[in-house]
Each structure stands twice: as structure tokens, then as C-alpha cells.
């Protein structure tokens, strides 16, 4: 069983040149940065807010804030990590506004109780994606991740969906590396367990188990 391959990491070599041009007032360079990262920012925002309109607002506000604060951007870090930090903060603010009775922060879900140990070990069907059509699968994935506390799903989406490194995730969320790792483990295990309720391997009608589990 090998390691998970990260999905992101497009070309970053000319990113600095674009940022510097944008700082000099070249709006087409900034527009190129928008083009490059708008999909990522939208995904992150929708994962955190779980609301399409809020996610659209976050995309606009995050890029506008980045534009207005470009002069303050220190070029030691990656522009994308800086942008993600702005977007995450904007998205968390949306959540706070929607739930004024609760304080929403990345720390809200740090509990004393350690619930990361798996309770359900049941194996999955070998090809869970094929059990459902595309729309059904999306609904399952969406509902499942919605059940995760914001701090967990934020770490999960940055690391596992967007492919940021642990260090970049820590920088974007202003967390320590051990805190990111701890939340990531809990997020992964909780999602695994919740998805297992849909994808659990079942006995077939003819008494045979789903195939594909004999090659360990």
C-alpha cells in the first residue's frame, strides 16, 4: 500500500513574476493569478462554509483583499499559501455571521476526549464509487464532510483535496505542524468511518461476499 500522491503543485516558477508585476500595477498579471487559483479558493470556501452563495462571496472578497494588500505580501512565502490564509479567514467569518450564537474558530473542535480511535472496523466494498451514480456519490461525500467540525474539514480540504503540504497547511492556518497532523488524522478517520456506513461490504443475495478482498 503506497503513499497518497498529491494532486496540486502546478507550475509556480512564474508565480513570483506575476506577483511582482501585479504589485507594479499590472492588472492583467493579477487577473492571471485569479485565473490560476479561483477554482481552489472556491472549493476551499465551499468546503468550509457549506454554502454556495457564501463561497462565491468568499472568492470575491479574498481576491479583493489580496489585491488591496499586495504591497504587504512578503515574497518569502508562496502567494497561494498567503491567498489561502485570507480565504480561510473570510470563510470562517461567514460561518460566524451565520451562527452568531456560536464562536466559530479553528480551535472550537479541540476536545479533551480522544475520539480518533476507530469504532467501526468494517471493510468497504472494493469499488465504492461504482455503487452509486455520480450525483448520488457527490451527495454522500458532501453530507459526510458537512458533519465534520469546521476545523477538521478545513485541514482535510487543504491537505487532501487541495494538496498543500503539511507545512503549507500549518502556515495557511497559523497552526503548528503537530496540530495539523493531529487534526488531519482525526478528520481522515472520522470521514472513513462515516463513509463506511454507505460503502460497507455486504453479503450478496447468493450468499457470496463482494469480490476483490482476497489479494492482501
Amino acid at each position, binding site marked *: *500500500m*503506497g*503513499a*497518497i500522491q498529491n*494532486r496540486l503543485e502546478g507550475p509556480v516558477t512564474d508565480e513570483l513574476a506575476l506577483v511582482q508585476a501585479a504589485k507594479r*500595477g499590472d*492588472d492583467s498579471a*493579477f*487577473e492571471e493569478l*485569479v*485565473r490560476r487559483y*479561483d*477554482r481552489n479558493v*472556491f*472549493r476551499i470556501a*465551499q*468546503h468550509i462554509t457549506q454554502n454556495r452563495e457564501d*463561497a*462565491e462571496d468568499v*472568492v*470575491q472578497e479574498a*481576491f*479583493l*483583499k489580496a*489585491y*488591496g*494588500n499586495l*504591497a504587504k505580501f512578503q515574497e518569502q512565502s508562496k502567494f497561494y499559501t498567503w491567498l489561502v490564509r485570507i480565504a480561510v479567514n473570510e470563510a470562517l467569518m461567514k460561518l460566524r455571521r451565520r451562527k452568531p450564537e456560536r464562536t466559530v474558530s479553528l480551535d472550537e473542535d479541540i476536545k479533551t476526549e480522544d475520539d*480518533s*480511535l*476507530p469504532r467501526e*472496523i*468494517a*471493510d*468497504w466494498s472494493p469499488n*465504492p*464509487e461504482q455503487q452509486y451514480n455520480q450525483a448520488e*456519490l*457527490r451527495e454522500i*461525500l*458532501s453530507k459526510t*464532510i458537512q458533519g465534520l467540525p469546521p476545523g477538521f474539514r478545513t485541514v*482535510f480540504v487543504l491537505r*487532501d*483535496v487541495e*494538496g498543500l503540504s*503539511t507545512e503549507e497547511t500549518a502556515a495557511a492556518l497559523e497552526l503548528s505542524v503537530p496540530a495539523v*497532523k493531529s487534526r*488531519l*488524522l482525526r478528520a*481522515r*478517520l472520522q*470521514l*472513513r468511518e462515516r*463513509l*463506511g456506513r454507505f*460503502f460497507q461490504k455486504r453479503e450478496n443475495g447468493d450468499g457470496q461476499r463482494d469480490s476483490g478482498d482476497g489479494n*492482501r
Partner: protein
Amino acid sequence: MKCSEFLHELTNYLDGVLDEPTKIELENHLSWCHNCYVVCDTTKKTIEIYRDSQLYELPEDLRTRLRSAIMTKCQQHKKRGPETV
């Protein structure tokens, strides 16, 4: 390696950042502990299924609309001066 130790290293293992001796020890554990094997396998599938799901993709028409709105606001900001964001 105990099951709790395996769980502690699971994220590092899936991220491919374990040192070689620990990786060998962990894989040895997986070779006989069915529960940990299942947890490891299904956690890996969880990550892959989300990564490949294209959940919350930005539709092209909305994307164009958002980009145009962003650039218009940037222009307005430039005209008004930096203190307005």
C-alpha cells in the same frame, strides 16, 4: 508495533514521510493485523475518493462572472485609493 502505534503513524505513512525502519515495522504489522489493514486501506480510499470527486467545482459561467466582478472591484479600489479595502 501495537495497533495504537500504527494509528499514530498512519497519517505519516499515507503521506509517504515515514523513515524506512518505521515503514517496514508498520507494513509488518499490516501483514498480520486485519483490522489495521482495513483501517489503512479504507482511509486511503477516503482520501482518494474526495480528491477525485470534483466536489464543488466552479462552473465556467460562474467563474467568468466572478472574475469579471473581482477585476471591476479591483479597478474601483485602485481609483479610490488603498485605504478602502
